[in-house]
């Protein structure tokens, strides 16, 4: 009897895969059912500026009940908070460096007491040092790992247990296409984003068993915010930088449709396919041609 069961699985397996591919294709064409955010309290790390700021505005626009901003620069947090409050959504901000574990736990407690349970956690905070390995400062290398990767562990530990208790929650990670395909000149960033991607993939697989708690990971290409100021792609007409408002909109859409992984723009899928098929030296030639080897030479970052 065990053998027939196994045989059944083996026969069904390719059919299942095909069905999943068909389902994904249909999802592209047919508008999907979108869950309401009216009961949700959203917390966005790095919410004071860049993509985080646009995410906060988008969540507020799409009906979130409360928005909480975490960041390191009070001025930016306050300005963003005021902007959102003016649209009628309750907004709070707290100064918190996600790279500091104790601070995360402390501020999480404050959030629970002052605002309530967080049901949507958006791990967006990130920094980039943007130098080659030998030119990188050791402390800066570590700082990037702590904020971009370890910070996500701590926020997850702070807020996920309650989401599991309530059987209601959503964890979002703003990652980067550089986690799947590295470039020279940003070794700290590529390492940290790759780690964060694995963390989310592992978590997503583990949470499949927890109804009501979902995950979304967004992998955008170069987005034109202050963070990567100065970086220059070779063919900007073919691969224009993304606008942060668009990244924010696609993220909130993904949350409302429970999409697990989003690559922006879709052309980046081709990059992943190429990487799977080509020998290393071929990839290097393509990188050189696409200008990846020199794009960080003009990098300025946040001034």
């Amino acid at each position: 009897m065990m053998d027939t069961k196994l045989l059944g699985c083996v026969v069904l397996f390719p059919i299942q895969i095909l069905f999943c591919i068909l389902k994904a294709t249909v999802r592209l064409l047919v508008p999907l059912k979108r869950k309401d955010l009216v009961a949700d309290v959203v917390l966005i790390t790095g919410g004071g500026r860049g993509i985080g700021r646009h995410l906060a505005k988008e969540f507020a626009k799409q009906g979130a009940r409360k928005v909480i901003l975490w960041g390191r620069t009070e001025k930016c947090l306050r300005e963003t908070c005021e902007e959102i409050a003016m649209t009628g959504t309750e907004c709070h901000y707290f100064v918190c460096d996600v790279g500091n574990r104790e601070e995360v736990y402390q501020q999480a407690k404050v959030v629970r007491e002052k605002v309530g349970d967080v049901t949507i956690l958006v791990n967006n905070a990130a920094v980039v040092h943007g130098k080659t390995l030998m030119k990188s400062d050791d402390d800066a290398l570590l700082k990037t790992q702590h904020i971009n990767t370890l910070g996500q562990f701590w926020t997850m530990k702070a807020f996920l247990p309650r989401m599991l208790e309530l059987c209601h929650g959503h964890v979002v990670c703003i990652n980067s296409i550089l986690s799947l395909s590295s470039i020279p000149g940003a070794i700290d960033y590529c390492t940290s984003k790759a780690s964060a991607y694995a963390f989310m993939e592992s978590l997503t697989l583990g949470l499949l068993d927890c109804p009501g708690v979902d995950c979304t990971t967004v992998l955008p290409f170069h987005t034109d915010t202050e963070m990567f100021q100065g970086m220059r792609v070779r063919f900007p007409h073919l691969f224009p930088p993304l606008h942060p408002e668009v990244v924010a909109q696609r993220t909130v859409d993904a949350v409302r449709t429970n999409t697990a992984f989003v690559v922006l723009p879709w052309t980046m899928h081709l990059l992943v396919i190429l990487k799977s098929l080509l020998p290393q030296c071929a990839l290097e030639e393509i990188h050189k041609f696409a200008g990846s080897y020199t794009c960080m030479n003009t990098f300025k970052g946040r001034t």
Partner: protein
Amino acid sequence: MNIVVEFFVVSFKVMWSFVLAGAKWLIKPEEKSVEGQVCVITGGGSGLGRLFAAEFARRRATLVLWDVNRRANEETAELVRDIYREMVPPKGFRNSVGELQLFQPQVYTYVCDVSKRESVYSTAEKVRREVGNVTFLINNAGVVSGHHLLECPDELIEKTMMVNCHAHFWTTKAFLPKMLELNQGHIVTVASSLGLFSTAGVEDYCASKFGAIGFHESLSHELKAASKDGIKMTLVCPFLVDTGMFKGCKIRKEMAPFFPPLKAEYCVERAMRAILTDQPMVCTPRTMVLPFDAIVCMYRFLGADKCMYPFLAQRKESTNNNGMKPGM
């Protein structure tokens, strides 16, 4: 140069690389000699590190073993000395004044916690002084906490990241400058197949291994961009190896015969072939080309999505007051 011409040149180069790869597969290239060269192996006290030490010793390299466990490190060193003793002495070579010189390789051991930046730098300084210029750097040291994320003490999560990923920053920064100067060297990253595919329950380990691979790729591109073609890099991603580090891990039992845990010796043998023939990164299929539902289907079919759960359960039961188990 005209963009169109450049595009054609690149396309040609891409196709040519396939031809080269095919040729390499048919006509196995010759293994390079490592005789007399200095090879640093982190985590040399056990598991794959010990086997790498034996392989390099057989090929007459000078070994430098780093491990946090002094006794295990010394045991590996003894093993290496036995190999050196059993080897047929070389014919020797004549030096500049015509005297016959016999090269006798040696093994050096250092206790070093690679998660501590200062420890790495000071030990590297000692190696440079006492041994010489390092040609091979095998970033092999690895640990796993063995707990689900929400049950894992924060210190253990940090430790996993610091040993498996951040340590590579420090060891590479310590030895790369000399390699760059001489335009000669080889950096090997021993990651894991869990650096290419994730599974549930071992979030810290997957994160650290993906990070190590991201680091390796990024550095690889940096070296290529700087045209330092004398420095080679090899990435080793073993599937589940039978060193006991992940004892208990099980995929779906019907599939198990198709994906048996690798024998550690086999794994190291294949890795050595890749290192000695300057094979760069492994070209691997990324599952992301399929919709996530299909990936989940695949994982569930293989029983790979929860394969680590029995390993985590075993760890919970076993009485290990330290909490961290390096590879055995």
